[in-house]
């Protein structure tokens, strides 16, 4: 329960410090909320080139390498002080066309769990998801909150081409492909929501610590 005492903060390189909270006993979502709050506190300084959260961990890349040890100490101190509720993300509604040509694997996912396609849509679109962090490719959001009834092992053979905007399920995760790419997740729908636009500022509308929900197009009309 004591998430304060044992976080590890180590020097990764001459200009980066890594905070690792993966071994703490708290619920991983609680730990992640603390990570988001810490990211936001770090971003309030001008000390970093980039502040990159991942799963219950964080790496900061320093503008001034001479401050390496100072930030190693400060991050550990801030972790103890931080209020996990401090970070309030933006909520996004992702209008989604489920099934048919938009979601060629919807029936497969339904059959795999003895559900009807309608029940899969209902379970997928009724949850509120937390954006844990971004990675894999520009604008790709790792989401927390997929209903356990929908956890589905990845496709045995990945597709060589998945269309931008595809809404998919892979193992215990659900996500949206921000660009055309290969992919091994089951595609259950499609959204026109643009996750990443390299000419926009910021290029990714969705940020770590935000929340989102999928809204079934038919019910949105």
């Amino acid at each position, binding site marked *: 329960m004591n998430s304060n005492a044992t976080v590890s903060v*180590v020097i990764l390189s*001459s200009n980066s410090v890594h905070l690792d909270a993966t071994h703490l006993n708290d619920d991983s979502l609680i730990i992640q909320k603390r990570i988001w709050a810490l990211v936001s506190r770090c971003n309030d300084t001008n000390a970093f080139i*980039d502040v990159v959260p991942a799963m219950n961990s964080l790496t900061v890349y320093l503008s001034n390498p001479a401050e390496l040890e100072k930030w190693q100490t400060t991050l550990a101190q801030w972790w103890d002080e931080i209020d996990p509720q401090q970070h309030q993300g933006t909520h996004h509604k992702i209008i989604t066309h489920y099934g048919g040509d938009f979601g060629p694997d919807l029936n497969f996912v339904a059959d795999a769990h003895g559900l009807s396609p309608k029940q899969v849509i209902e379970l997928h679109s009724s949850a509120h998801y937390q954006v844990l962090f971004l990675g*894999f490719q520009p604008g790709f959001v790792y989401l927390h909150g997929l209903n356990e009834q929908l956890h589905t092992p990845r496709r045995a053979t990945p597709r060589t081409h998945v269309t931008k905007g595809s809404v998919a399920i892979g193992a215990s995760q659900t996500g949206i492909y921000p660009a055309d790419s290969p992919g091994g997740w089951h595609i259950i729908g499609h959204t026109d929501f643009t996750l990443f636009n390299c000419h926009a500022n910021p290029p990714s509308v969705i940020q770590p610590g935000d929340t989102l929900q999928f809204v079934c197009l038919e019910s949105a009309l």
Partner: protein
Amino acid sequence: MITVLKPGLLMTIQDKGRAGFRHLGVAQSGAVDRYAMTIANRLLGNNDNDAVIEITLGLAQLQFNCDTVIALIGTDMKAKLDDTPVYPGWTYTVKQGQILTFSAARNGFRAYLAVKGGIICEQVMNSRATDLAAGFGGATAAALKDNDTLSITPYSQSWPKLGALSPPKRNVIRIHPSIHANLLKQSVLDDFCVKTWQVTPQSNRMGVRLQTQSNQLTHSHSLPSLPVSPGSIQLPPNGEPIVLLNDGQTTGGYPLLGTVISADLYHFAQLKPGDSINFSYVDLATANAAQAKLDAHMQQLSIALKNKY
């Protein structure tokens, strides 16, 4: 304007790359050898971060459709401007219509061609570097191909013949300690440094993949995704390390054997499949001293070039 007649194995527009967008999943991109790129720019009086052409292996051909001055830094690809040899490390004046032809590199893998005033293209997220995987940046948002054209500012005035030495090669790459030393056994870390590693053909700008004989580094650890960056050395369960380079992803779930010190990362630009390297753990003071030495090399170049233009 420059016309790409043949791009060779891989030809891209690069600068120092994108900083500050890793939290959105955006790779750094940029020249794998940022020092070669910088030296090429400085010989022409360009800004350090002006866009250059990164040439991989060679077998490439460019035609200049206007007068300009070029500087070529990196491995020797037996380049010729029409019939005149072009040696790495020097500036050359180019006349409209001339063709620059590269043969294959023998001792290295990459060369950087800067032109007077830089390659002109739009900045995307504060950089002209090409992000190959995501498809933005550079002149065409992709690797250059036959008949692509590159915009440059014509330059017909005289320019002095200038040359520069590149920092020396190293075969032993210095690395920061592993943050997963408790997870990976000490014998694994020791073994990593004892072994000589060969670069595999699967290597690219995302990462250099390594193999060795009688590999003892296999494991079964899987970690929650953690941030990674160019220089991170991942150890997948098959025991074959991957040194992430400029196009590497922003997060990964493999344990890290260590991080290449900033002063040694540029050496990976010249490693081609089959080349051998070794690794050695060093402390922070050694890493900082190595970077200071490299910074001094670049500073000396600036001083030497002062008043030469």
